């Protein structure tokens, strides 16, 4: 009975490594579902298809740039945000990875869910996530985001974050130490460099399923829907 109400977001399937020489349809720059051409990477956004090697090199450079410039939205949802503060200090120094804390979603592209999410907070988190500009990633921090953690039987906290937002990297622990956070961010940077962290594209492709899941738990939905 419970499973009928839930719209399943498709599981992330690891793509097979492309055979570049044989598979001519292989595209290293996956097209966004709403915007066919990325004008910042297709110089001039011309109709002419560039050669494959050229596009591959461009994608490599673009992903390298993105991975080394993660701007984190400083939005602590639970107790896990306590472990984010040392990252910004001189001991752990997240600035050496090119990461910077930002106060608003319009200026950031990494959203860290720092712990449990009550429904009241989930509503604000969804709103903040949809306000972030396009190359954006979600990091689930702590076991509360993975399976509910110590709040698994609470009446007002969700148990699985990836039903409602596309999570790129989970960091387990209750709470994870700053060293674990650094390892998680390096994992995220590795995935971005390999072009695998496409959570925001999956969010757009499965927007209807995500919206159904979100509206199922949030009682009074008084927000505009995602419309860009």
């Amino acid at each position, binding site marked *: 009975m419970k499973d009928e109400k839930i719209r399943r977001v498709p599981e992330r399937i690891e793509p097979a490594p492309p055979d570049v020489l044989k598979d001519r349809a292989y595209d290293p720059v996956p097209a966004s579902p709403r915007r066919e051409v990325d004008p910042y990477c297709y110089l001039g956004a011309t109709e002419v298809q560039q050669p494959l090697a050229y596009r591959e090199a461009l994608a490599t450079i673009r992903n390298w740039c993105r991975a080394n410039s993660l701007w984190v939205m400083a939005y602590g949802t639970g107790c896990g945000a306590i472990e984010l503060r040392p990252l910004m200090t001189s001991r752990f120094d997240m600035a050496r990875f090119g990461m910077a804390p930002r106060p608003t979603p319009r200026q950031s592209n990494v959203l860290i869910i720092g712990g449990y999410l009550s429904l009241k907070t989930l*509503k604000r988190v969804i709103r903040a996530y949809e306000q972030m500009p396009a190359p954006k990633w979600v990091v689930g921090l702590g076991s509360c985001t993975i*399976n509910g953690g110590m709040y*698994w039987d609470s009446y*007002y906290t*969700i148990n699985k974050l990836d039903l409602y937002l596309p999570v790129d990297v989970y960091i387990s622990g209750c709470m994870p130490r700053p060293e674990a956070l650094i390892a998680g961010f390096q994992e995220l940077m590795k995935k971005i460099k390999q072009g695998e962290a496409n959570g925001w594209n999956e969010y757009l492709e499965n927007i209807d399923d995500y919206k159904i899941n979100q509206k199922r738990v949030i*009682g009074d939905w008084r927000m505009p829907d995602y419309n860009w």
Partner: protein
Amino acid sequence: MQSDGWMTQETVALSGLTRRLEELRGDGHVQLTLMTVTDWLEDGEFEVSYILTDPVLFRTVILGVRIPRETPELPTVSDIWPQAVTYEQEINEMFGIRFEGSPRQGVPFILEGWKDIPPMRRDFDTLKYSVEHYEDRPGRRSIDTRRFVGRVSDEKSFTDAWEPREDDGRERKLADMDGGAAGSDRGETTDE
């Protein structure tokens, strides 16, 4: 009335509540520190406690008033202490007690869009609500710390107790609440 020198606990009937609060306020207990509720489910009553503090003589009075669960209504004290509005709003949301004359009654404080009975009542089953509304990730296991009692000196039995069992934490908790699995666990640990 109980007293241990600086903290006094007393109970008052509903009819004399406002008069007693004003008496205490005139006596020097000018600060409303906390309003809290106890749910006496077996007696069919709520007990609303007003914790008042005298900041000069450092005295504290815990004034309790019992009201029936069927008609949970109380006069507001927000005309005496304005900060009581927030306490009364939260108590109204979490326990369903209505404070007559208090503003913001029925306005959501934390629970936005809540449709069930007030969740801090003891007859509200939070685990059942969580099972029905939020999906659990399969594969979750729990290790009951009661299995470690008395076993830490023996290395082998310690590692045995550490082995996770093939059951879900959620079902285990459900069985625990029924009194099923709890007995067997306690039996194991007292064997030694």
